[in-house]
C-alpha cells in the first residue's frame, strides 16, 4: 500500500474548510458522494415515496414483472420489490455504519499504541492479528456470527471481534514510520507523554489514511452482512435485507431472475459509491 | 581539424502532460570524438535532455518542439548502477543478452564476447564461473557492468547520466578513468551529464550550463571556465572550484 505523505503541520481546521471546497474539484469524490446521497435520501423518504409496506403481502399479484404499479415487480408473496429493496437499504446501511464504529476506534487505537511503543506490546498485538488473519475471513465471520446467534446483535459482536484487525495493521505501519520522523522525536524531547503525542500528533496524521481504508472496509462489511443474510445466519426475516432477498429469489432464478439480481445490484451500487468516495478522498489528500 | 557533427539538438522543448515546462529550447551540437558536458543543478533538465537524445522519455513527458538529429548509435550509462540492472537476472546473462541481440551472434559466442568485455572493464574472474546477481556486486562493479552493456551496443555516442554520483569518491575516480581510457581506445563521442563542475572540466572539451530547463551559457570548457559570462555560471564556478587553480594552469584542462 502506498503511503500518503501528509504535512504534519497542517491543522485539522484548515483541512476541514478546504475539504468541502475541494469535493467539487475531485470528480470521483463528487460522484461517490452523490451516489450515496441518492441512496440515503431514498431510504429516508421511502414511506412517502412508496404506497406499499415492505412486508405487505398480496398473494393475487405474486411474481409480477416490473410495471408502472410495481417498479421492480413483486416477489413470490406479492410484496413490492422496490419498496423492500429500499427498506432493506435502511437495515443494511444502518448496520454497516454502526458495526464499523467500534472496530474502527479500537483498531486505530491498538495500531497506534503498537506502532508507537513497539516492543512487547507490539509483539502481542501483532501475534493477535496474525492469529486472526490465519482464519479465512468468511470462515471466522460465519462461525462467530453463528455462535453469537443470528440477527443484528450477532453481526455487531462478530465485527467487534474481527473488524479491528484491518485498521490496526494499517495504523501500526503508519505510526511506526511516523515514529522515525523528526517531529515525533522533537515532541518527545519536549517531555510530552506518549499518549499525548499519540492523540495530538500521530492521530491527525494517521486518520486520513484510516478513513480511506474505512471506505473500502465498509464495502467488505456490507458484503459480509449480505452474505450472512444469504446463508441464513445474519438478518432474520421478516426484516428486509438484501442478502435474504437474494436467497429468497434463488428458487425463482429461472422464471423471475430479477428477484435475486436486483438486490445484488443494490449492493454493487453501494460498493461503487463507497469505493469512489474512498478513492476520491485518497486523491484529495494526496494532492496536498 | 575536420569537424563532423554527429549529433545535433535543436530547439528541444520538453513538457509534462500537464504542460509544465521541463526543458526549454535547448540547442547544442556534438562532433566526432568530442565530449560535451551538461552541467547544472538537479532538476535543471540535464537528464531529460539525455533521455530525449536516447529517444526514451520517461512516462508523462513529451517532446513539444525541436529536433534531435543523429544517425549514430547511442548507448547510455545511468546514475544508479544497481537500478540499471535487472535484480533477478545474473549480470553475465544480461550482458550476453545485449551482445546477442545487438551483434547478432549465437548464444555461446555472445557469452564469450560478454566475458571479454567484463575482463576489459576489470571485473573479477569469479563472474565467469558463478552466477552473480547485481545485489552481490558493489556499486562500482555494477557501474562497470552497465558500461559493458553500453559498449556491447557498439555506440558512437555514449550518453553518461551522472555515472559517478551514486558511488564512493575513490570509486568515482576509477570509473572516470575507465570511461576516459575506453573513449581513447574505442573513439566514441560522449554527452556527459553531471552536477560536478570539476568532473565536467576534467572530462569535457565543451560545456553547456543548464538552469531551469534552459542553457544559460555554452562554449569551450577552458574559455567558459576562465571567462564565465552568465552570473549563474560564475556562481557555479565559485562554489565548486577553488579559484587559484583556475588561473593560468591550462594543463589541468587538457
Amino acid at each position: 500500500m502506498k503511503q500518503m505523505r501528509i504535512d504534519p503541520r497542517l491543522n485539522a481546521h484548515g483541512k476541514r474548510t478546504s475539504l468541502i471546497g475541494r469535493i467539487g474539484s475531485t470528480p470521483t469524490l463528487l460522484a461517490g458522494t452523490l451516489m450515496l446521497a441518492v441512496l440515503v435520501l431514498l431510504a429516508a423518504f421511502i414511506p412517502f415515496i412508496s404506497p406499499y409496506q415492505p412486508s405487505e403481502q398480496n398473494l393475487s399479484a405474486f411474481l409480477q414483472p416490473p410495471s408502472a404499479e410495481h417498479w421492480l415487480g413483486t416477489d413470490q408473496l406479492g410484496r413490492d420489490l422496490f419498496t423492500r429493496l429500499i427498506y432493506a437499504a435502511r437495515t443494511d446501511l444502518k448496520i454497516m455504519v454502526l458495526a464499523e464504529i467500534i472496530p474502527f476506534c479500537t483498531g486505530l487505537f491498538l495500531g497506534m499504541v503498537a506502532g508507537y511503543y513497539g516492543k512487547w506490546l507490539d509483539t502481542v498485538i501483532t501475534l493477535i492479528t496474525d492469529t486472526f488473519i490465519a482464519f479465512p475471513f468468511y470462515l471466522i465471520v460465519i462461525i462467530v456470527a453463528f455462535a453469537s446467534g443470528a440477527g443484528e446483535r450477532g453481526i455487531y459482536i462478530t465485527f467487534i471481534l474481527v473488524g479491528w484487525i484491518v485498521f490496526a495493521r494499517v495504523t501500526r505501519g503508519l505510526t511506526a514510520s511516523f515514529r522515525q520522523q523528526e517531529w515525533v522525536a522533537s515532541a518527545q524531547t519536549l517531555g510530552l507523554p506518549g499518549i499525548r503525542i499519540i492523540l495530538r500528533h500521530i492521530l491527525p496524521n494517521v486518520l486520513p489514511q484510516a478513513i480511506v481504508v474505512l471506505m473500502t472496509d465498509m464495502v467488505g462489511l456490507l458484503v459480509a452482512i449480505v452474505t450472512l443474510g444469504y446463508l441464513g445466519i445474519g438478518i432474520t426475516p421478516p426484516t428486509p435485507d438484501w442478502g435474504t432477498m437474494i436467497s429468497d429469489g434463488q428458487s425463482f432464478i429461472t422464471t423471475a431472475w430479477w428477484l435475486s439480481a436486483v438486490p445484488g445490484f443494490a449492493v454493487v451500487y453501494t460498493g461503487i459509491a463507497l469505493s469512489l468516495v474512498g478513492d476520491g478522498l485518497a486523491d484529495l489528500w494526496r494532492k496536498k | 581539424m575536420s569537424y563532423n557533427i554527429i549529433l545535433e539538438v535543436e530547439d528541444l522543448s520538453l513538457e509534462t502532460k500537464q504542460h509544465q515546462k521541463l526543458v526549454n529550447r535547448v540547442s547544442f551540437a556534438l562532433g566526432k570524438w568530442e565530449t560535451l558536458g551538461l552541467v547544472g543543478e538537479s532538476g535543471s533538465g540535464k537528464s531529460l535532455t539525455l533521455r530525449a537524445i536516447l529517444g526514451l522519455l520517461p512516462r508523462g513527458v513529451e517532446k513539444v518542439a525541436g529536433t534531435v538529429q543523429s544517425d549514430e548509435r547511442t548507448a547510455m550509462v545511468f546514475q544508479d548502477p544497481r537500478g540499471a540492472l535487472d535484480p533477478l537476472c545474473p549480470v553475465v546473462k544480461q550482458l550476453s543478452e545485449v551482445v546477442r541481440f545487438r551483434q547478432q551472434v549465437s548464444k555461446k559466442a555472445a557469452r564469450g564476447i560478454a566475458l571479454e568485455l567484463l575482463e576489459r572493464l576489470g571485473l573479477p574472474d569469479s563472474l565467469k564461473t558463478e552466477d552473480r546477481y547485481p545485489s552481490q556486486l558493489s556499486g562500482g562493479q555494477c557501474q562497470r557492468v552497465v558500461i559493458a552493456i553500453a559498449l556491447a551496443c557498439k555506440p558512437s555516442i555514449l550518453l553518461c547520466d551522472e555515472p559517478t554520483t551514486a558511488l564512493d569518491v575513490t570509486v568515482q575516480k576509477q570509473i572516470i578513468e575507465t570511461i576516459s581510457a575506453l573513449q581513447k581506445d574505442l573513439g566514441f563521442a560522449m554527452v556527459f551529464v553531471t552536477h560536478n563542475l570539476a568532473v565536467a572540466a576534467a572530462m569535457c572539451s565543451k560545456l553547456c550550463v543548464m538552469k531551469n530547463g534552459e542553457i544559460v551559457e555554452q562554449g569551450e570548457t577552458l574559455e567558459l571556465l576562465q571567462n564565465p559570462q552568465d552570473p549563474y555560471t560564475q556562481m557555479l564556478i565559485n562554489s565548486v572550484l577553488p579559484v587559484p587553480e583556475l588561473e593560468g594552469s591550462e594543463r589541468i584542462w587538457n
Partner: protein
Amino acid sequence: MMKPSKTLSATAGNKSRGSSRWLAMVLVRALVVILCVTTAVFFLIRIVPGDPSKMILGEYSTPEALESMHHALGLDLSLGDQFLRFVKILFTQGDTGNSIISGTSTRELIADRAPVTLLLIGMASVFAIIIALLLATLAATNKDKLPDHLIRIFPTITLGMPVFWVGLLLILMFSVRLRWFPVGGVGEGWGGTLHSLALPAITVAFSQIPTLVRSLRAQMLDVLESDFVVTLKAARIPRAIIMFKHVMRNAALPTLMLFGVNLSYLIGGTLVVEQVFGIKGIGSLLFSSIAKRDFPVIQGIALYCAISVVIISLLVEIISRWLDPRTKGKS
C-alpha cells in the same frame, strides 16, 4: 497490503548465517501462530452465550440429556483439563473429537470432503492468476489509454459484488440460459468433475481478480519505470523479451507474496461458493454442521483451514526468499 519487497531488500546483504536465523525466526513465528490459532478454536465454543449443550439440544431438553452432552463435549472437566485434552487429541490424532451427530471422527469427515474443495481452490487460483496477469499486463503496457481505464474501473465495480451473487448470475447466464455447464453438483469422472467445477472456480477467481490486478498493475508499472528497463530498451532488446523475461519475472515475486496473503480470502470464498453450487465439500460440511450445531466438526474445519493458511503462507515466504537473489548475500 505491505510491500513485501521492502522487507526482503532490507535483509539483503546478510550472510548465510543471517539466512538460517531468518528461517528459524519465521518457523518459530509460524509455530506460535499455530498455537494461538489452536487456543482460539478451543475457546470458540466458549464464546457462545449460555450453555452450548442447550443450544445443541434445544430449550426443552432433559437434564440427563444435557448431562451426557456435557460429557460428550468434555464440558464436565475443568477448563485446564479440557484444553489439555483438546491439544492432546489434536496433536496425537490430528482431530478435534467425534461428530455429535454421526459419531464419525472429524478428521475422517474432513478428509472425505477435502479433495473437491482442494481441487476447486486449485482451479480458482490458476484462473485468478492467469486472468489477473493478462489484465495487469494489458493495463500496464497501455497506461492511461482505454484498456487501462477500463481495467482500472473493474476493481471499483467488483469490490462490492457478493461472491454468491456472482455465482448466481453466472449460473443464470451459463447454466440456465446457455446450458454450457451443469446447474450444480459435481459430475462423474475427471472430465465431469472439471466441467462441473469450472463455473464455481471462475466465481471464486472473480472475487480475487480485482485485488490481484490492482496490485499487479502497480508492480508492473514500478518495474516498467525502473532504470533497468530503460537500459534494456536503450540496448534495443526486443519488447517481448523485456516484457516476458524481465518485467514479468520482477512483478511475479511480489505477486506470489500477495497471493499467499490472499489465499485466506480465497478459501473463505470457496466455502461460500460451494453452498451456491451445491458442491459437497468442506463448505457444505461447515454449513450442515452449523445447522446441526455439531461443534467438534465446526472446530475441526476452522482449525484445519487456519493451520493450512499458516503453513502455506510460510511456504510462500520461504519460496519467495529462495527465489530472490537479493537475499543471497555478497561473497
